[in-house]
């Protein structure tokens, strides 16, 4: 019968009983793939996961990836996508939170309406966007509504000049994720002390823009940092909506391929070039790691993570 005080040996044993299964699985399914990927990236591994020594190409795959115009273009696509989606989601989520937070009636209703799309998958959203709202030239909600104003029909997903497909890609993600970040902002808003607003009123600050600029916005700084960080990390991993909106029976168009879509076709497409795909994954992982660390340093987030 164990008592309140266990010897250090027994404690160590119990630690591993609790943490062991999880740590083992994480090691097997995260660390092993990472190391394996690193190994594969030095080989000319087509359609095989255990290349023999003669397939060793050193840094060849990395050279090929970094001089591959299509891969570099995929990184460019990602940067462009991030530049659109991060500020757009930030502003929309904050605006929704501010409006919902002020409501005295029906607050729960509006919060639910904006939060509900979070339950939808990108696949389902893509069905609606691609086949109903922004469908081809003949039908669809967007063309019908624009038609009322006499606008021409637009082939939203295949028009590259101007790039109308961006509108489709950005709005689908906005709809899906704005509600989630609205919840984060609502939590942040509720933590702001009412006394700050009272003090501001005494000092003559008018409610509205002035209070927002001098009290609300600065007080939301920690939330804002977290939201931007999450938005960028999520944008890095964009795959679902690009894949589902743009590819069809004929394949994937050469434009608007973010890195994950590109790697997917490199590693698992016709070629099954796992060596090249792994090199791309390593490059992408390094870029993400550097970007995250720089961002965390920049905002001083590390200090909060220590705990």
């Amino acid at each position, binding site marked *: 019968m164990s008592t309140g005080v266990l010897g250090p040996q027994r404690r160590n044993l*119990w*630690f591993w009983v609790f943490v062991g299964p999880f740590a083992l699985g994480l090691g097997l399914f995260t660390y092993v793939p990472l190391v394996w990927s690193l190994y594969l990236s030095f080989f000319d591994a087509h359609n095989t*996961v255990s290349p023999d020594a003669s397939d060793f190409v050193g840094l060849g795959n990395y050279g090929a990836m970094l001089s591959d115009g299509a891969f570099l273009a995929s990184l460019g696509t990602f940067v462009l996508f991030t530049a659109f989606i991060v500020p757009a989601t930030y502003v929309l989520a904050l605006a929704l939170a501010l409006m919902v937070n002020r409501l005295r009636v029906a607050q729960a209703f509006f919060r639910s309406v904006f939060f509900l799309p979070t339950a939808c998958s990108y696949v389902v959203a893509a*069905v609606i966007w691609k086949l109903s709202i922004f469908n081809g030239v003949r039908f669809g909600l967007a063309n019908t509504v624009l038609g009322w104003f006499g606008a021409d029909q637009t082939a939203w997903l295949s028009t590259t000049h101007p790039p109308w497909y961006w509108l489709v890609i950005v709005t689908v993600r906005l709809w899906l994720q704005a509600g989630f970040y609205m919840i984060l902002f609502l939590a942040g808003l509720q933590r702001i002390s009412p006394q700050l607003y009272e003090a501001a009123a005494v000092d003559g600050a008018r409610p509205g823009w002035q209070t927002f600029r001098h009290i609300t916005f600065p007080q939301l700084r920690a939330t804002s940092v977290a939201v931007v960080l999450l938005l960028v990390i999520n944008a890095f991993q964009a*795959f679902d909506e690009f894949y589902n909106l743009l590819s069809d029976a004929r394949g994937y168009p050469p434009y608007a391929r973010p890195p994950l879509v590109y790697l*997917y076709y490199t590693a698992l497409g016709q070629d099954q070039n796992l060596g090249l795909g792994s090199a791309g994954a390593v490059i992408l992982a390094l870029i993400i790691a550097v970007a995250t660390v720089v961002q965390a340093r920049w905002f001083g987030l590390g200090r909060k993570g220590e705990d």
Partner: protein
Amino acid sequence: MQDALTRAGRALRVVLLVALALLFLVPFYLLVRNGLAGERDITAPDWTFFPHELRWSNLTEVFRDPNLPLGRALLNSTLIAVSTTAGTVVLASLAGYGLARIPYRHANVVFYAILGTLMVPAAVTFVPSFVLVSTLGWISTLRGLIIPTLFSAFACFIFRQYFLGFPRELEDAARVDGLGYWRTYWKIVVPNSRPVFAAVGTIVFIGAWNAFLWPLVIGQDQESWTVQVALSTFTTAQSLNLHELFVAAAVSIAPLVVVFLLLQRYIVAGVERSGIDD
């Protein structure tokens, strides 16, 4: 004057809010409209907001189409989402408790090794993970779809943070009664931590139900398709009747919308509690 301005401002805000809410609801409406409409109502050039006819038979028709294995896909998705949720919650909560409460010299090293994997986005490791799973011979199996996704560093982190704040007095009382770590955990800690379990559970469930890249990569046989992969296949192929695709999409989100509305309180609490904005 000032009063009139404030009132006008408030009215404007309400109008804007209602307009935005309607915009957010339109996609849900289209899902239902197209699912219940005839083919002509979806593809005709003279598109109307309300369909000309409602065909309730679409609901049963979609389950009989041999080209769209919807029943099988829903079963797969359910099995995957339920076991992923159960497995993740058990594994991550045990690890979180061990890290938070059992003194061990190298606990910090272990914790940072776990936390570090959050830096590596799961999606970036899909190539090597695919390689590993194919080596294990798990392609197109439920094992391959479930087991690699069970070890969520995010869930472990949330449980650890939660257990760090769990009142020590409760555990001390259990110790005095002679309970060891194992029984203290199951008899005292778990029953008193239901909200965090519910929050993590719903978040994991939604993530597993909506997952796309992993099931797409691993589920290569039609037999192992999840509902997302099945929908995606027909969205890109466009070989199916459109109204069936919309019914199937609506059916695929229906259980989640119900879970969502029922458990919204926990999800919101879980998101707020996750510590990402503290």
